[in-house]
């Protein structure tokens, strides 16, 4: 059997057309939510490979670009958090079928917006941690340039003025919301983490965090672990 093709679709949101890809024609729908910012680029190939694996098991897998990220033409600096949750709601509406969500890292902060029947998460990251990391990237960049700036100054900047980091420009509203974005852990959530991560999880995987790599990397064994776990989970929660 030849692998399912990657189909380019779009979803409409505020008059803009944003990219949505689908792999797998038929079967129960799974909406993938990528990590935010740089980690989305690093994990794209990995996510696509995981979607291919699940398509082969009979699932229709969808992956949207968030407005202002990846190939979106929408200027990120004009967006706030509600724009992102609204966009995910628009994706769910466009797919128009009961959904499960699979999110990586901080993608989990948006999964509730799709109103999924069940949620699966890998190494979820809260907004506070991600915001600290953005501040850290700026601090390290300043250190490289020989500038002196404190973490407190940069932390105050994120959320009160436009914050430029690693090629992204976050509006004050987006920065402020990100800082406070907590992981919603209500029912119907399965959480996987990597071995070595001390936070609680339903299962831990022996694999390396590809989202940390500056050069995108692939790991077919890791990918297969996800396909196995997600397909088992999806079948189980379909039966319940």
């Amino acid at each position: 059997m030849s692998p399912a093709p990657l189909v380019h679709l779009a979803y409409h949101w505020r008059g803009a057309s944003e990219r949505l890809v689908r792999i797998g024609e038929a079967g129960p729908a799974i909406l993938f939510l990528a990590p935010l910012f740089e980690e989305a680029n690093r994990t794209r190939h990995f996510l696509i490979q995981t979607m291919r694996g699940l398509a082969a098991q009979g699932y229709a897998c969808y992956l949207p670009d968030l407005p202002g990220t990846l190939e979106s033409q929408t200027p990120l600096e004009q967006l706030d958090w509600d724009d992102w949750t609204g966009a995910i709601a628009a994706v769910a509406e466009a797919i128009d079928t009961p959904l499960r969500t699979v999110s990586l890292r901080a993608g989990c902060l948006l999964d509730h917006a799709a109103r999924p029947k069940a949620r699966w998460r890998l190494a979820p990251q809260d907004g506070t941690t991600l915001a600290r990391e953005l501040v850290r990237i700026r601090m390290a960049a300043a250190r490289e340039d020989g500038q002196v700036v404190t973490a407190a100054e940069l932390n105050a900047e994120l959320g009160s003025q436009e914050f430029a980091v690693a090629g992204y420009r976050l509006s004050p509203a987006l920065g402020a919301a990100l800082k406070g974005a907590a992981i919603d852990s209500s029912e119907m959530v399965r959480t996987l983490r990597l071995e070595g991560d001390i936070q609680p999880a339903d299962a831990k995987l022996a694999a390396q965090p590809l989202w940390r790599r500056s050069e995108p990397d692939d790991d077919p064994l890791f990918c297969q672990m996800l396909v196995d776990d997600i397909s088992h989970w999806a079948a189980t929660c379909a039966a319940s």
Partner: protein
Amino acid sequence: MGSQEAAEVEQTVRAVLRDVLGISADRVAGFDDDTPLFGAVPELDSMAVAGLLTEIEDRLGIIIDDDEVDGEMLETFGNLVAFARSKALG
């Protein structure tokens, strides 16, 4: 501090360097106290430094004050391990 705990912190720092920088386990295993890091390991750019600190926090269950992070702490493998030990083991 127990020597076993100290060795565990060092192992964690090695694993984080391997995972964040995408360098081989063999290469990381060859790092000693004097191995230079920041400025010497090309993979360790500003983005990687941020990931490195956050991963060390997550895996050791510590909080790193960003204002304590300076060139000296990142200068050598030994300095980075000493910093992580001081945070994790007191």
